[in-house]
């Protein structure tokens, strides 16, 4: 086995692994990217069925709980969208708090949440939520 021959093998092997990885990455990105929308984005172009994340504030007075079922509204203070969720809401979930919600928009315009994420640390607004509030012109600085 000469040095040159060996190098050739290794380059081929490396390309094989990298090629395989690239193929995996491309297919996975196509299927598994989850886009983030604000309630205003949803009002402008509602795309039912696709898996997505939405973020905003839980509207004051909108939370209705019925056992493990919960309904509430998420707002960026310009628009809002109704959400329904079955399961246990995170400890830090409460009205007026920033949340990120993953799920699909139902055909009735209500968002079916499969996951509700509230920040572990309430000091900070989730960045995506802050950005979407800024976009809606409703950002009030760092104040809670």
């Amino acid at each position, binding site marked *: *086995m*000469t*040095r040159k021959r*060996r190098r050739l*093998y*290794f380059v081929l*092997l*490396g390309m094989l*692994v*990298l090629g*395989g*990885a690239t193929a*995996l*990455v491309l*297919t*996975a*990105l196509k*299927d*598994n*990217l*989850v*886009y*983030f*929308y604000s309630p205003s984005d949803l009002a402008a172009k509602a795309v039912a069925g696709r898996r997505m*994340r939405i973020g905003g504030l839980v509207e004051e007075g909108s939370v209705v*709980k019925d*056992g*493990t079922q919960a309904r509430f509204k998420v707002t960026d203070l310009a628009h809002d969208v109704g959400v329904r969720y079955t*399961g*246990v*809401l995170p*400890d*830090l979930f409460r009205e007026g708090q920033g949340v*990120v919600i*993953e799920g699909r928009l139902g055909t009735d315009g209500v968002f079916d949440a499969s996951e509700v994420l509230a*920040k*572990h*640390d*309430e000091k*900070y607004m*989730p*960045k*995506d939520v802050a*950005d979407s509030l800024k976009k809606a012109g409703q950002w009030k600085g760092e104040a809670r």
Partner: protein
Amino acid sequence: MIAEIGHFALTLALAVAMVQTVVPLIGAARQDNALMAVSGSAAMAQLVCVAIAFGALMHGYVTSDFSLLNVAQNSHTQKPMLYKVAGVWGNHEGSLLLWALILALFGAAVPVAGRNLPAPLRARALAVQAAIAVGFLLFILFTSNPFERLYPAPTDGAGLNPMLQDPGLAFHPPFLYLGYVGFSMAFSFAVAGLIEGRIDAAWARWVRPWTLAAWIALTLGIALGSWWAYYTLGWGGWWYWDPVENASLMPWLAGTALLHSILVVEKRESLKSWTVLLAIITFGLSLLGTFLVRSGVLTSVHAFATDPARGAFVLILLLVVVGGSLALYGLRAPALKAGGVFAPVSREGLLLFGNVLLATGAGTVLLGTLYPLIADSLDLGKVSVGPPFFNAVFLPLMAPLVLTMAAAPSLAWKRGHLARVRSRLGLIGGFGMGAGLAVLPLGGPWWAPLGIGLAAGVLAGTLAEPILRLRAGAGLSRRQIGMTAAHLGVALVIVGMVGEGAWSSEAVQNQSIGQTVTVGGYSFALNAVEPVKGPNYTADRADFDVTQANRAFARMAPERRVFTVPPRPATVAAIRSTPLTDVYAVIGEAAGPNTWITRLYVKPLVIWLWIGALMMAGGGLLSLSQRKRS
């Protein structure tokens, strides 16, 4: 006053680090022993300075000195002492100071442990180490000073997030940092070796234990973090592909590859430039990991702060360190003398193949972690890349890696004779397939038998070599036993992953007192929910009687705590572990009179995740404890 001493000591450390960066390099270039010797004493002085600064901050926490902004924001008089101490690194500024302290510790270890190293190599490595310290100390002093005062001092602090008040988490960051910073040794010596144009077996013998030590610490740090997530978040998951978890996984993957390629340099003086490249990449990923967390550029549960100045500083530092060393690599690596040749089918060949897979795995995790950032800055929309992406990409890359692990110990160095080990490999493969078939009746997804089969293959492949050696009457060195234990640990971790991922059952419901819910063969009877009072929280504590097949299994008492300062709820799950399964109960909010939301899980084999991780670390320690080369 003590805080001012700390601040001054930190500034002094910066000055010392600057001297330590420049003087030894000049000394090494001129072959001037006096100048090179500066590196050792400077490293010691730097440790003393940073330790004083760290001690000063700790003093502030322990005495609850709220005239310090950092203490006021993150501590509280009512906090238990352990968390006052751990609170030092529970925040951005303090954690960076801990980073600098560990870096100084490693730097000071070089002159102590490396007396017989060639003086120029030692001097150059210490200079590189000091250059990293300069970057970090500048970062701390200019953007994240922990000694900033607050006027007037508040009477009490804001408290620490109750989720972080946990022994698992108190020790998670120090271990993680020992790992991250430990890889700086391999990096510094790689850069020093590049400057000298010489990487050889002696270099590898010196770098290997440090890399191994860093790897052990990082393994433990990741396991602690995962364990913490498992039992405190109350969702029963142990890995979320959160950006911060990824940030620690990437250097671990690259570091694992580095560990194995150093072995090839040590034994065969081969793969030198690949090893040097890996050393640079591993430390680069460690830096990236630190900064992904610290700069808050990624939406994550861990991100401490979002400050553009910090982000920019971090980016520049990263570019200088990684870009500079890669440029040096490009210039000097071709000059490294190539070592022994080997056939593709040989232990080196398989080690290299595994290395490529590990590096590619780290690359895909990096891509998935940074993709949301890239997409956002290119205006491709706001996206998130979640577990489905990583599972679809990362796991298919790891399957061949595990196969390689099963086969590699059976092959000889330099040139493996497949014919000679064919029956052994057949046996290993047969054992794996048998185990896979054996779990088929358990059902679950298609990959469950595959995963168990792979784990069994690793088990057989790892044990085959030592068993044959022992039967032939040959002894085993600590290094061999350590490697065996670490590889068995990987097999156990795979078993735990498959068990949890494939065969878990869960139920979420409103449960009234007196009602029984059955999950995965276990019946949970809710006897009572009572209020209890802790030192700094109040809680609802549930009382479950858990039975399996009409036999009492356990009495479990999960809590839902509400802390007084800051007023936040936290879930304390009740978990009962047996070798076969974990039973996991969580109580949520009240859902009505005498009714609570409960989450009940049965998670098979989870305990093997932690045992496997401990075995990996323990095997590393055992291997580390062997002084002489076998």
